[in-house]
């Protein structure tokens, strides 16, 4: 036991005397939460619209003014022919284009009085290279044009007639647990998972493989320290650091972004502890299987960071993934941590609802710890 304490003492000194790393470790996570919390959003805020208006008249000008008056739209330019559109889209200078037919006002007049068989055609072209944004953009255009028509009609026949005659089904929508769909609320638990992965797994992997690279690991191995003691000694200081990070990120999320905190803090800390242990075990495993710091780092980046970001449900909903990938996602500890963290923070549920997630995390921890100690043991012989 004494030997273990001494060894941990040595590790602590390693960390504390490398001031630069320590500051990076403590400050960067906080900076990231603040940066991404403000910056990462999916709501559409600005649409750059080009109007193709070969023969301007009262109606085209009125509809253009409508787009101009809309907060989301910026009418960047009005052109006479659609020929320039491909170039504008390719340069990324336009998101949407609206093409008016010549004689729009006259045609509209005829259609309204029933003297024309066909309604005038209004074309809207949208850059849908990004399908998510693209479909949102199409919905916006549709809405603006609908409203414009309804208001024109109301001017003519009176608002009551229009309101009374509008058919349709109105949805009353309630969003549970996150009524405004605030991105930050979903993002913070995910960011905690990612940061814990980095601090715990990457740092412990690097620290172990560093001793390997420098040859000091052999000295440790011939010392009376047992493998599990070496691993514990390596791992515990980073566990403490990970916890400090969890605390600071949670505090920032609560104070700066007002992320709700409905459930029990103790339970969240317990889940974090489990997650830190899983990450640390993974870090040790990676270090045991690689021979240099740079391979360890690449392995950790590719094998842990990207899956945690993309397969945990942090950015992309798990339900949209193909079935086989959802099965793969089950192997990502981050997924289970994220589910329980969101449950605790946003839903305020306790173990009664989260026992499954907790059980999976516990199982993973146990399994990986054993695997890590074994992988390490093999190196002894």
């Amino acid at each position, binding site marked *: 036991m004494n030997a273990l304490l001494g060894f941990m003492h040595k590790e602590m000194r390693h960390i504390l005397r490398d001031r*630069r790393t320590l500051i990076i470790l403590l400050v*960067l996570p906080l900076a*990231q939460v603040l*940066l991404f919390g*403000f*910056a*990462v*959003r*999916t*709501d559409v*805020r600005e*649409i750059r619209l080009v109007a193709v208006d070969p023969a301007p008249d009262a109606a085209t000008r009125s509809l253009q003014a409508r787009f101009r008056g809309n907060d989301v739209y910026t009418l960047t330019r009005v052109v006479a022919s659609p020929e320039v559109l491909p170039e504008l889209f390719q340069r990324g200078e336009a998101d949407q284009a609206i093409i008016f037919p010549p004689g729009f006002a006259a045609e509209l007049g005829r259609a309204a009085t029933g003297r024309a068989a*066909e309604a005038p055609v*209004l*074309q809207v*072209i*949208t*850059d*849908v*290279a*990004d399908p998510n*944004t693209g479909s949102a953009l199409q*919905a916006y*255009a*549709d809405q603006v*044009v609908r409203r414009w*028509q309804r208001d024109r009609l109301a001017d003519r026949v009176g608002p009551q*007639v229009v309101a*009374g*005659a*509008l*058919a*349709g*089904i*109105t*949805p009353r*929508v*309630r969003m*549970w647990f996150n*009524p405004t*769909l605030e991105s930050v609320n*979903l993002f913070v638990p995910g960011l905690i998972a990612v940061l814990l992965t*980095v601090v715990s797994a*990457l*740092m412990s992997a*690097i620290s172990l493989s*560093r001793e390997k690279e420098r040859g000091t690991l052999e000295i440790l191995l011939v010392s009376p320290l047992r493998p599990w003691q070496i691993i514990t000694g390596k791992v515990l200081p980073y566990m403490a650091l990970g916890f400090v990070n969890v605390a600071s990120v949670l505090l920032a999320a609560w104070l700066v972004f007002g992320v709700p905190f409905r459930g029990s803090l103790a339970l969240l800390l317990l889940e974090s502890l489990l997650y830190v242990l899983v990450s640390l075990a993974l870090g040790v495993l990676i270090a045991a299987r690689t*021979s240099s*710091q*740079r391979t360890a780092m*690449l392995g950790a*980046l*590719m094998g842990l960071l990207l899956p945690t970001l993309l397969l945990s449900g942090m*950015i*992309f909903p798990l*339900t*949209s993934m*193909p079935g086989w990938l959802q099965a*793969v996602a089950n192997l990502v500890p981050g997924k289970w941590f994220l589910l329980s963290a*969101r449950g605790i923070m946003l839903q305020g549920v306790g173990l009664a609802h989260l026992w499954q997630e907790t059980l999976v995390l516990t199982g993973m921890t146990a399994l990986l710890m054993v695997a890590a100690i074994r992988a390490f043991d093999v190196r002894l012989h």
Partner: protein
Amino acid sequence: MRTLRFLLAKEFRQIRRDPTLLRMLLVVPVVQLLILSSAATFEVTEGRLWVVDQDRSTASRGLVDRAVATGRFAVAGTSASMGVAEDALLDRRAAAVLHIPTRFEADLVRGGRAEVQLLYDAQDGAAAGILNAYMGRILQRYGDEVGGTLHPRSSEPGGGGMAGGDVQQIDLRQRGWYNAEFIYSDYMVPGILVLLVTIVALAITSMNIVREKEIGTLEQLNVTPVTRLQFVASKLLPFWIIALVDLALGLGVAKVVFDVPMEGSLLVVFGAALVYLFVALGLGLLISTLVETQQQAMFISFTVNMVFLLMSGLFTPIQSMPSWARMVAEASPVKHFIEIMRAVLLKGAGLAETTTPILVLAGMGVVIFTLAVRQHSKTTG
């Protein structure tokens, strides 16, 4: 020149003799591309819908059938009361609840208008928002049709042609350019490929010089007549080539596995990649000269990667960001290269349309490379 050749031979030999590293550099990115590209989608199919149908009429059943027929929803369960439905939502057995109140059909017949209630589990906010958008569209269409037929008065032409679907006097035709079928992988694969190449380039070069520092071999090099420029070039070129090979492999996977369209010229892509990699590798070298240990290098390059990952318009649109964050994005080389890749591959842009971002990248490259060479000092201490 001869000195450079010798240095290059040394670097290549070092890479070749580390098979783990080589595997990580060439195989892992391809595997990642295969897996992660399938994860990066916001499209939801068969969202689990819980139905509380208190009307039990032809109209209400028709609405549920319509929702299922779109393929966007699958009925996860039904109940007569909202209490049961709310439990299902809490247990994640359902993602959304559709509550159709009594008098739904009667209201439609009498006034052509009715109301439904929708409840979403917004814990997974992205998915909830998407499901709500799908449902909104379904309700709009169904309301237009059924409201019109059940409430004939509103679709009489004598009523001014203003009710139901007839409020629309304009034939609004929406067209989506560049990804008309809304295929996510077409948009995501080029972006993820850029990210993987960047991670390889940045991680590996940022740890390269500092490694020689740590091992002590840098001092040996410092006392040789090798110039700073030669030294930096020898560190950069091997990984430049490896990263290009990665890009080519990735593009092959994109074409064969994901069938990503390649509208524009691949020459432009590779031309831009030559410039871009210069920037990415230069950035890695700059980090490498600034830090003392590989651990520090790793943490900084990890942070840089995170900023690139989340703020380069890869997953969330840049236009949704606040203006200060957009400026940060402008400063990121990844943003420009992703833009070029997407413009060329999806939109068929040529050199003329991508000149600006390529020039920006070239400018960044010159600045960063100069800094890296100057920062690397041949004196110790």
